């Protein structure tokens, strides 16, 4: 049985951990760089930019200043600073009515883009939980002399309470904030950790504009995905160069804490770009209801999204006009090339007609329904729905024969429609009315 076995050997044997990885070299010089195995694995997996290793640095990121028990980096930008094609100060003139409408949050009528903090965090994991550290928090805010971009950083887990305390104070002071997906992610990472350290979270009374949801409402289907980077490129014209994917944020900090060469400088840059994009996107979103010339982004999708949110708040005439316009734009745009565009256009026209009905403008509704019903090459299901509406109107006006005629035509249009729940329900309604009368 020989030499007594060490605890590490015993653990390795029992845990079946096998041969341990060689400890990562603590590199005293930045290059040539040998990346630790866990990082190279990630690089292989994510097809990282080839020069990533060369961008690693050692030691603390530049321009960090000790502040209140943690670290901070502060940059200033003039109000005229252009992020992509958008001036940062354009955010100040964003219509809060539009922001509140598109965010479907009337409380945001009290929002003030000039007072708000624009927040983005980098953390060591997406899953949350107590072992996830929000180690870099960017808060941008308009000051008297321009925009201040504050990045609070913790160099070790011990500094977490100090960083969070500062963040809590800054958010509480502003009383309003803008994030991208922050209602789901950033806020909860911060709130959980604040509770962990017994720091009062500032979020309860804080106005919160989460840009993710209104932008999704307005541009769903127009862009390849709903990511911040996609929106900033399409809507603000901002192109990132050599940006580090957020997926590297955890490892960058782990490497820094362990004194290994790290990519933190890249994370700071990424984080700063994120937060400037929040300002630019707020400016964009605030102009969507009354766009001046040249507002970027897909107009048909935007009109459709606006039409639907207006319908939800009961502004039916405006909703109908937006939806009708969206329909025309889909008809006349390159979107027609897409296989579903004709159907989308017909759907929107039907939605517009329904909105006119709700607004009490039956004549405008009738025109649209009739156009749909008589479009022989159009979407049969939508045509049948339109015929049903025309029939119902006749019934209400006691013109039963006409109603039956519309309903029979609707049934005919349904004949070749693919089976669906919507088709089944419509058929059931039509047959019931025909049988009853």
């Amino acid at each position: 049985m020989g030499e007594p076995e060490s605890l590490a050997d015993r653990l390795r044997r029992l845990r079946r951990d096998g041969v341990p990885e060689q400890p990562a070299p603590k590199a005293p010089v930045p290059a040539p760089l040998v990346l630790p195995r866990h990082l190279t694995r990630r690089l292989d997996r994510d097809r990282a930019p080839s020069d990533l290793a060369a961008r690693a640095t050692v030691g603390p990121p530049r321009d960090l200043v000790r502040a209140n028990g943690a670290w901070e980096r502060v940059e200033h930008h003039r109000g005229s600073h252009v992020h992509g094609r958008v001036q940062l100060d354009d955010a100040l003139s964003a219509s809060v009515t539009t922001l509140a409408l598109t965010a479907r949050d009337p409380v945001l009528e009290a929002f003030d883009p000039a007072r708000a903090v624009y927040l983005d965090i980098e953390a060591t994991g997406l899953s949350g939980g107590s072992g996830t550290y929000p180690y870099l928090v960017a808060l941008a805010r308009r000051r008297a002399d321009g925009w201040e971009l504050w990045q609070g950083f913790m160099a070790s887990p011990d500094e977490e309470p100090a960083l969070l305390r500062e963040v809590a104070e800054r958010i509480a002071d502003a009383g309003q904030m803008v994030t991208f997906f922050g209602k789901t992610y950033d806020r909860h990472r911060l709130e959980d950790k604040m509770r962990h350290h017994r720091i009062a979270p500032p979020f309860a009374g804080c106005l919160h504009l989460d840009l993710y949801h209104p932008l999704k409402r307005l541009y769903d289907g127009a862009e390849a995905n709903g990511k911040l980077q996609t929106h900033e490129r399409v809507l603000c014209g901002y192109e990132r160069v050599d940006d580090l994917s957020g997926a590297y944020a955890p490892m960058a900090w782990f490497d820094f804490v362990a004194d290994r060469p790290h990519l933190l400088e890249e994370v700071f840059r990424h984080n700063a770009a994120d937060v400037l994009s929040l300002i630019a996107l707020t400016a964009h979103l605030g102009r969507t209801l009354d766009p001046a010339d040249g507002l970027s982004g897909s107009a048909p999708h935007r009109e459709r999204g606006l039409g639907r949110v207006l319908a939800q708040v009961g502004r039916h005439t405006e909703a109908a006009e937006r939806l009708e316009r969206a329909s025309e734009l889909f008809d006349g745009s390159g979107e027609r090339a897409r296989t579903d565009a004709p159907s989308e256009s017909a759907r929107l026209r039907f939605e517009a007609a329904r909105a006119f009905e709700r607004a009490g403008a039956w004549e405008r509704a009738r025109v649209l329904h009739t156009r749909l019903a008589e479009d022989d090459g159009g979407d049969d299901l939508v045509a049948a729905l339109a015929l049903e509406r025309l029939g119902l109107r006749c019934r209400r006006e006691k013109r039963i024969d006409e109603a039956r005629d519309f309903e029979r035509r609707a049934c005919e249009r349904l004949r070749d429609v693919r089976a669906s729940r919507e088709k089944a329900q419509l058929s059931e309604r039509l047959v019931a009315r025909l049988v009853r009368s």
Partner: protein
Amino acid sequence: MPSHDRTKGPRAGDQDLLKPAPARGSARHLRGKLSVDELVGALDGHRDLGGRISHWERVPPREAAWAELPRRLDPRLLELMAARGKERLFSHQVAAVDAALAGRDVLVATPTASGKTLTYTLPVLQRLIETEGRSRSLWMFPTKALSQDQSSNLNLLLGDLGTRVEGLEDLHSFTYDGDTPPTIRRTLRERGHVVLTNPWMLHQGILPNHAKWSVLFENLDYVVIDEVHTLSGVFGSSVANVLRRLQRIARHYGADPKFLLSSATLHDPAAHARSLIGRDAVIVDEDGSPSGERVFAVYEPPLLDPVAGLRANALEEARRLAEVLCGPKHQTIFFCNRRTSVEVLTRYLKELAPRIGLKPDEIRGYRGGYLPDLRRSIEKGLRAGEVKVVVTTNALELGIDVGALDVAVLVGYPGSQASFWQRAGRVGRRGNTSLCVMIARSDPIDHYLAEHPEYLFSAPKERLGVDPDNLVILSEQLKCAAFELPFRARDDGSGNTVVEGEFGSNPHVPGILDYLADESGFLHRREDTWHWMADAYPAQDVSLAGGEPDNVLIIDQETGKAIGETDREGSITTVHVGAIYQVEGETWKVERFDYDNRRAYVKVVISDYFTEAQTDTEVRVLSLEDEAPDARGWSKLRGEVHVTTVATLYKKIRFYTRENVGSEDIDLPPEELDTEAFVITLEPETARALGLQAGTRAAAWSAAGRLMRRVAPLYLRCQPQDLGICSEIRSRHFEKPTLFLYDRVQGGVGLSTILFDVFSDLVRAARDVVVSCPCERGCPGCVGPLEEVGEVGKRTTALLLDFFLGAPLPESVDAASAKTP
């Protein structure tokens, strides 16, 4: 047969504060028309079945031991109790409540239906009153169904308290489990005064996200854990560590919760409580509740082949018993040990329904895997008396409220005394006479119990193997703990590094944390603190049942869907290429086994054979910790071993006839296991004197080991398959005949220590099985079939076991084996 007088004692079930009173005209009313005595008489006098009852046991009714309600309880709580007809309590309830109110941890270990729920409910309510509703408690149940069952009743009680105590109008209890919708989780975290959950949700959901639960932890006064006898082995050892994590987090939020534990009657409850919560608890195990008369019967199926010791199938016998024990005016519950048996027996009984005066709908199956709505409707039917017969597994063993039934039939021993009593406790809960019949299968333990029914009625003998300091479990749980809060080290004054905020008393904790930092890379040590340092959520990968990350998934290659899984150790014998894998009677053939990625690909086939793999096992001794040599030429030892198992070939065996229809080689790498083992060695001269080294008698050495493994569950809480066995006529390490019984869990969970302690009991039980078995030369119910043990195998095994028990060595083996047994 004894005569049966109806008990005059109060009804035990009425003491259950959380159970609503039965409705008028319900099953209770119907049962009034029935005398269980008549059923006992019918069974006893039955022409065929009566003669097969090998033992009748009558446990007389017991009067209640009453005590006054603790004076420390708030008068308004006393009023609430009085309004529910509880002006006094059973003595054990009062003792437990008193201890809890005095700020002690408490373990109540009393039988089913003795009113244990009340012992933790009252202190919780009292504390809610004292803190004006700020107090919080966490209740943990071993199954989701149990917590849901408790929650609805508890809410009624909290509502009642709210009407009596100003300021407590808004008390709530919530169940937090996998079914809890995300939309109400926030409300539950902030407004749940009592959170009912299970160990898995605590491990994976609550503790890693403790900040979300800060209101609960800041005000946490009590942690209630029900049915703690189910916490043993890898699961119990893991849960003990989860409780260490819980205590650590509670301390972080400034709370010091007390533990209120409840359990079935246990062997050494104090030790069990200490293993689980790391400190001493007040043990309350003097049951003061009354019970009606209980009649027990042990039923032995008829012997079909006396030479081979083959008995009639237990399920078939259950069907025959049903003809006497089921009927329209009483309720009968059948317990099977496997889900498939539930389905088979349910079908048998539904077919039998007209002959026993029932409609098929009055006979129901109930098991895990049924949808919740179906289960609720069956439970309701049982409570209302509409369901007359239910066939179930252990799914109805724990305290789901199905009311009091009349007759229980156990199709085989459930594997532990605790389970036996839980199942028996399902009948006669309201003080009526009850009948419990156990059918003994062709299995050594069932056989032993048929011969020694007194075992069932004596104090519990099973020890629970709980080892929270198993290095594998501990290190994995430390990962989870480090994710939740950093560990801080300090010098204990004598140069040793210890961990502040203690995590049990294992001195290796700092060393393990260093290992997790330096070699696994999960943690980072900065001066005196270890911080979590990985982009991962460890609780998701750490299983409470152990070994799961290594489990092999069995996948239908046509659909790509998983149809089952098997543990790492078992995979080389169950899912090798060519193996027939069986699920619910369907047969699947393994087409490909991706050993490295832990995937076996199968396709469904109609097979008339199943497969049995043969293995070679080699055990290498790494270290020996305990050794007890016997002067008569044998020794028992305990230590750490390395086990290598190689699957060599598999046989194809035809169903029913067991005809061997071919064999093939298995080509898989060996399976390695580092664990703890209990070891027996024989001096070579002793072995010679017993004839073990001569020819076929060597088989007796393994037969004795196999038998001890089979009867081990009589003395430790485990399944026989939790223990591995290796017998060698000449061990390379000891150079003599050696028998290893090892824990089949990487690192071991303390089973070998218990085996070392209970060895003589184990041998005695094994010997009794051999001697009393009616077979002539070996059968599956004792030493194994004749083909395995040879002509003299049974006699030599008996001789060997006798020798361990003190009998002298025979002068001539042949003469001795001719006489024995």
